[in-house]
């Protein structure tokens, strides 16, 4: 039919009707959105439209493909002295339920799953000042001893800060030693919300937003990739969310080291902020969409199913996300905060969710190299060495 309008035309029409025509024009033209544009998109009532714009960008970058990986989690200690008010995982030394895993125990956790095709271990934990610098090197080595080909994605920025402090060396001198011991990349957790006001009220013992950015820059300069997150749905304002996304975008312009952005939902249960309601399903979808729309230079947006739940993660694939994280053996942090999702999922189940969401499942490694795909085209890409769409 020649008289039909293009999907872009329909998006533009609804966008003008909803008062975000200028923003939609920029999105469709591939131009960067300003902070004010971000605020306008947060304020737009029409979630179908905001989702549709984000989906348009996702489609342009990733087509029908949705990524997952086969991974396991290790939280080597839950002892922490940062007392973040949103956290249900932390324990004080000596408190009931407090634990630290020895390097041997960490190795044993890896060996438990040698029969599964795990390609990545995600290793993050609390800040326990008694752990010596050597401990961190030892747990990396223990993982590599147990499974030499596994990729270690470990240590959020606050952990790196602690490790460098214990090593009594600047972070840039510590990173090569961590890499030598087996560190492959850094996760994106712990960015929370960069704004100083939120930092003061919610997690003042933790690194500031500026420090996070500075450390991430150092990590990227050391040749490591990392992810980035934002913990939304507590006391932060919309302006503070836009500020957070903008600062990530500026960092990425500089370093190109961010692979993936992951909006994390605040789970109120068992935290000091348990009186807050936490984000609703529609708010979670909007965060996914805003991440995709604002972060034009970050290749991947992840719908972390452990936190969103299976239904929302599936749906998020239509609102800008192109990754659902992995099979995740033994997640603890969100489950202490009352997450009711399973702690792990079988590979075939993940494939089913992705297919039912209208996407082709593609298994990736941590650095987004394609390992397997249901779709021959992506497998060919994989053979040709083409990974994920590159960031500038």
């Amino acid at each position, binding site marked *: 039919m020649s008289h039909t309008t293009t999907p872009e035309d329909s998006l533009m029409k609804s966008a003008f009707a909803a008062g975000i025509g200028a923003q939609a024009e920029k999105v469709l033209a591939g131009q960067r959105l300003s902070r004010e544009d971000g605020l306008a998109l947060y304020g737009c009532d029409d979630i179908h439209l905001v989702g549709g714009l984000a989906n348009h960008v996702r*489609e342009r970058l990733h087509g*029908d493909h949705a990524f997952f990986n086969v991974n396991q989690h290790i939280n080597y200690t839950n002892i922490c002295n940062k007392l973040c008010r949103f956290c249900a995982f932390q324990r004080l030394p000596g408190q009931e339920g407090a634990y630290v895993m020895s390097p041997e125990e960490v190795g044993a956790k890896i060996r438990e799953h040698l029969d599964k095709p795990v390609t990545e271990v995600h290793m993050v934990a609390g800040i326990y000042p008694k752990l010596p610098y050597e401990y961190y090197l030892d747990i990396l080595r223990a993982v590599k001893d147990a499974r030499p080909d596994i990729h270690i994605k470990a240590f959020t920025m606050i952990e790196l800060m602690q490790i460098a402090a214990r090593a009594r060396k600047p972070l840039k001198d510590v990173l090569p030693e961590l890499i030598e011991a087996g560190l492959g990349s850094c996760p994106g957790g712990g960015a929370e919300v960069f704004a100083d006001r939120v930092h003061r009220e919610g997690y003042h013992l933790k690194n500031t937003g500026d420090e996070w950015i500075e450390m991430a820059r150092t990590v990227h300069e050391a040749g490591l990739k990392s992810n980035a997150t934002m913990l939304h749905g507590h006391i932060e304002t919309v302006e503070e969310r836009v500020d957070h996304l903008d600062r990530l975008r500026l960092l990425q312009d500089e370093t190109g080291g961010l692979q993936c952005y992951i909006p994390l939902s605040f789970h109120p249960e068992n935290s000091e902020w348990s009186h807050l309601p936490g984000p609703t399903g529609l708010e979670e979808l909007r965060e996914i969409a805003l991440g995709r729309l604002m972060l034009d230079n970050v290749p991947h947006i992840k719908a972390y199913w452990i936190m969103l739940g299976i239904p929302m993660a599936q749906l998020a694939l*239509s609102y800008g996300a192109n990754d659902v994280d992995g099979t995740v053996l033994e997640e603890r942090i969100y489950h202490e905060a009352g997450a009711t999702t399973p702690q792990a999922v079988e590979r075939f189940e993940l494939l089913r969710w992705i297919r039912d969401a209208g*996407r082709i499942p593609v298994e990736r490694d941590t650095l987004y190299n394609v390992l397997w795909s249901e779709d021959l085209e992506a497998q060919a890409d994989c053979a040709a060495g083409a990974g994920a769409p590159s960031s500038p």
Partner: protein
Amino acid sequence: MNSAPPATQPHLAWKAPLASSALRDPHRSRLQELEALVADGRRISCEEALYLHDHADLLTLGRMADSVRSRLHPDPIVTYIVDRNINPTNVCITDCGFCAFYRSPSDPEAYVLSREEIFLKIEETVKLGGRQLLMQGGHHPFVLSDWWVELLQDIGKKFDINCHALSAPEIDHFAQVEKRPVEDVLADLIQAGLGSLPGAGAEILVERVRAIIAPKKTSTDRWLEIHRKAHEAGLRSSATMMFGNVETAAERVEHLSRLRDLQDETGGFTAFACWNTQPKGVPEEHKYPVATTPALYLRVQALARIFLDNIANLQTSYVTQGMRMAQVSLRYGANDFGGTMLEENVVSAAGCFNLTSIERIEHLIGSAGFQPRQRNSWYGIVDTRHGQPAWPANREQAATHSAAPPHRRESAPSLGLST
């Protein structure tokens, strides 16, 4: 390390369309035509519904369903009802393999609630402002219409609360065991105070499917016949669908079509609700090897909203989908959050009740951009915030008008009539 693909893929009866196919012709043009047609308030045919089911992407379906909802309900209101679920008995001789609730009459876990137990539950519900008792049991060989008539009468004497009770298969069961016409059974129950009839037991209204999942249950025609007679007798009822078992996509549409046809005749359905089969732990789990995923729930719910242009209200199912998904479904066609189901949610400790379920539902509705309002069983808004008296306020008022939304435009002649 490369991991090999799994050796065998689980069997899939239906495959979701790749979302991008909706962005390219030929589907793009066809979907745009259908979206324009629906936006114009016209009726879609079964073929068109099946086309949407098989080819539309979720965002398109959501947008279309949202536009139908806002046409039928121009005020930004989402309703819910403070109610309680009471299952007077779990004894059932119909042996549906997807049901984990029923027990055979001789089972040690079989029960029939005493009057005192039922009254205690009702007292708690009334104290919390409850307006409805959702009362359903199994097909007990000896708990028949006389038992229910007495119960309804006793409740009517003691409490001011509507009994939204029984279901077409239960009424069928009474009629069969008591060897008398359905009309008589219904007349007795209505006389005793039955206020409205739930839409349970519809499952999939296609005989091929029923023969597999519920061979002993009321047939399709009989289910529809009982609702027709209930409507004629002045009762309003709701309609349901349990999908995601052995039915095909075409059979889902056939189910919706049977409901739409009856509604054209009687106007007696107040609402529609659907959910996917929850096969975990049911007696015949082997018949449902692959549970459907939540994306299908939104797809079918949205399609139902688009197709059922003559049923005013669409209820979400937070019990099966979870609160997050239920909230999102308000943008995929639902305008009602269902009941508070206090039976499941009331925490009764030392005589104090926990109303978090109501607060939570109100918060979710509000943050989806709607005003939460409490309703009665006939979808009259009873909320003090509404500023108008509830209408319909009771069974008799509800029976005076068609529950179908007014001003529905007929389908365009060129599009063909639904079958």
